[in-house]
């Protein structure tokens, strides 16, 4: 058993005892009822289960939750899809996904949102040249499987959010 202290979407959860073999995915979905993070394969292949982990140094990365124990998130700060909108206002990415009809069944969408959000934040710190943009997006999103859309509209939505604010994201 591990005493898990974790911050989710800016809120520190009261420390909870978790079994060492409880997956992070089950912790979110079964224990907390936060089902915005999905379960697709349980083998880190599809990343429907991916969430954002925020490092103390300000950097962030996405992590699957299906193949890692909840205990390994002790002391960490994470963001899930439920935390993207602030006070009912959708994020730029959320709006773009809607406007571009980027998803169909929507089951992979949380993972894509998290990944794209981390990409935006990374580009804001380390912009890329316009000519590299599409490849940067493709590299970032390639770990995510979508069975409905063929990916194109997801990529276009992310690209358009970046192109709408080139000073921030592009070199």
């Amino acid at each position, binding site marked *: 058993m591990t005493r898990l202290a974790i911050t989710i979407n800016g809120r520190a959860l009261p420390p909870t005892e978790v079994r060492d*073999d*409880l*997956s992070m995915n089950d912790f979110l979905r079964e224990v907390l009822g936060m089902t915005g993070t999905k379960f697709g394969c*349980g*083998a*880190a*292949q599809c*990343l429907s289960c991916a969430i954002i982990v925020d490092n103390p140094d300000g950097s962030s*990365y*996405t*992590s*699957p939750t*299906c*193949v*890692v*124990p909840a205990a*390994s998130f002790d002391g960490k700060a994470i963001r899930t899809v439920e935390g993207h909108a602030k006070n009912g206002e959708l994020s730029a990415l959320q709006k773009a996904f809607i406007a571009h009809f980027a998803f169909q069944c929507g089951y992979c969408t949380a993972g894509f949102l998290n990944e794209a959000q*981390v*990409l935006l934040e990374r580009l804001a710190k380390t912009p890329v040249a316009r000519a590299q943009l599409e490849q940067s997006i493709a*590299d*970032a999103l*390639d*770990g995510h499987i979508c069975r409905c859309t063929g990916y194109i509209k997801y990529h276009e939505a992310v690209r358009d959010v970046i192109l709408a604010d080139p000073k921030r994201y592009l070199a």
Partner: protein
Amino acid sequence: MRTETRFKILVSAAALALSGLTGYAASQTPEHTLASPDSFASISDTEARSAAIFTELGKVLTHPRCTNCHPAGDRPRQTDASRLHQPPVTRGADGHGSETMRCSICHGNATFEPGRMPGHPEWHLAPREMAWEGKTIAEICAQISDPARNGGRKVEDLIHHIGEDTLVGWAWHPGFGRSPAPGTQKEAGALVEAWVKTGAACRAK
């Protein structure tokens, strides 16, 4: 027997055992054990004995548990069938993955059984110069003895690396769905030690 053939037999034996045909668990075969250094005593020529000991060690070095992370290219392999790693991941600048897909994101400090996810604090790819995939025992022997290609090690250092390093040690306790390397890490270490003590000889080919 050529290394490749033995490698293939090892791989196919393991694959057969684990294909879940009728759900039988992986069984021990002679291929999955390691002979002790003593069993080579009958070879009087020291150099030949040394090379023979290394060939026995080759059963470990050419096992998927080792070759999967000593790939020829920039992408690891996985499973007893040594298929290309899925999801697609790449070596990156430091062998620990690309900027967005670090090995440690999925591969934690220890194997997580419920996720069938292998783990170790140092999970990463061996450098390109230490690639063994597709090489013969003789070629691996030459490579592993060469400080330019083995991370600047003396052959004596290999006794610790193979016999005691915990990342290498994972190969003998890989978790569900993966066959362990032959023998035990201790036995492998003993073979390395015996090989070194007999002059660390390599076969010509």
